[in-house]
């Protein structure tokens, strides 16, 4: 029998031959040192191949894949949610108005814009009046302050220096006493 093919040797190692083929190979191996050596060599190679290192996936690999298949829902910021709700409500209102009035969207939008302008038109004079009232209040306060200052100047010119000192000192003492009295009252109030 002529020498074995490499294929026969590998199939013999892997036990992939039929019983008759297997017997034939074994018979040849008994008498052929070249094929015996070739078999030993390939057995060794197969042995080394069986124990090649295995690549390990990271422990969270499954979670990573699942996260790519089902990306987590991102919650909208509160203001964006409010804005979206407002916009959606407006769209809904327009839709209902279109149905109720029978007008098309363009004319509804035009009427809406006109209404907004009218509102602003009426609001503008009111805003001017509020500003006028505020400036009037500021003038009144200014006049009152001027009157108070004049009164004090007049008083200091009438009263003598010594009396002024007595009045100022008495006023300061009265203010300090009042503050302490008030504080004491507040403290007692807390305790009770």
């Amino acid at each position, binding site marked *: 029998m002529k020498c074995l093919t490499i294929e026969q040797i590998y199939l013999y190692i892997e036990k992939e031959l039929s019983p008759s083929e297997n017997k034939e190979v074994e018979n040849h191996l008994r008498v052929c040192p070249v094929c015996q050596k070739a078999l030993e060599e390939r057995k060794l190679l197969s042995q080394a191949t069986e124990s090649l290192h295995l690549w390990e996936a990271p422990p969270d690999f499954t979670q990573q*894949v699942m996260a790519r298949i089902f990306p987590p829902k991102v919650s909208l910021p509160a203001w964006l949610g409010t804005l979206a709700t407002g916009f959606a409500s407006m769209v809904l209102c327009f839709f209902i108005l279109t149905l109720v009035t029978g007008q098309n969207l363009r004319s509804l939008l035009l009427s809406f814009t006109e209404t907004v302008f009218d509102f602003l038109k009426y609001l503008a004079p009111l805003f001017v009046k509020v500003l006028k009232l505020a400036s009037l209040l500021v003038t009144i306060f200014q006049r009152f302050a001027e009157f108070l200052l004049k009164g004090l100047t007049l008083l200091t010119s009438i009263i003598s220096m010594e009396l002024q000192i007595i009045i100022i000192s008495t006023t300061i003492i009265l203010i300090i006493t009042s503050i302490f009295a008030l504080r004491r009252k507040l403290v007692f109030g807390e305790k009770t």
Partner: protein
Amino acid sequence: MSSMNEDKNLVDRAILGEKEAFEMIIQKYQQPLLNYIGRMVGERELALDFTQEVFIKIYSSLRSYKPQFKFSTWLYRIASNTIIDYWRKKKIDAFSMDQQRNQDKDLPPLQVPANEQPLARKFEISQLREKIERALDRIPGPLREVFIWRHINELSYEEIAEIKGLPTGTVKNRVFQAKEMIRSLVEEKP
């Protein structure tokens, strides 16, 4: 329950929207798939990306899976196509399938060389393992692919033939060619 029925059951449940069923599929196949893809592309991060991509492709085409075939066969076919696309995009000739087809046709049966250098006495098993790993990176893609499926993923020749749509004889021939090529590379002096 057999592995095949178990896989079909998991696929059915995943199609119905049960996320846990698909998680179980990932857990079952992540390591064999990573071992195949990893050795085909060579880089760990890239291999992890591709493995994820394959699982995503599988999820999105679960409905096209035909239960008469083994689920693992379908999974490896998708993985193999992903790798082939990658090699084509990178314009790497090592994965030319047409070239390999021609080689399959012309190849005579490999004969035992008369004066073969003995490996057994030259290297320890651990050294031999390292040399095989390095040699594996240097053999052509179509040979490497079938070698990995046969000896690392432990698929049968029939399963590999089904994945690649090739005759079993051709697959066996490629595996033996791969082994002989690895052997000759291991013998080479560094």
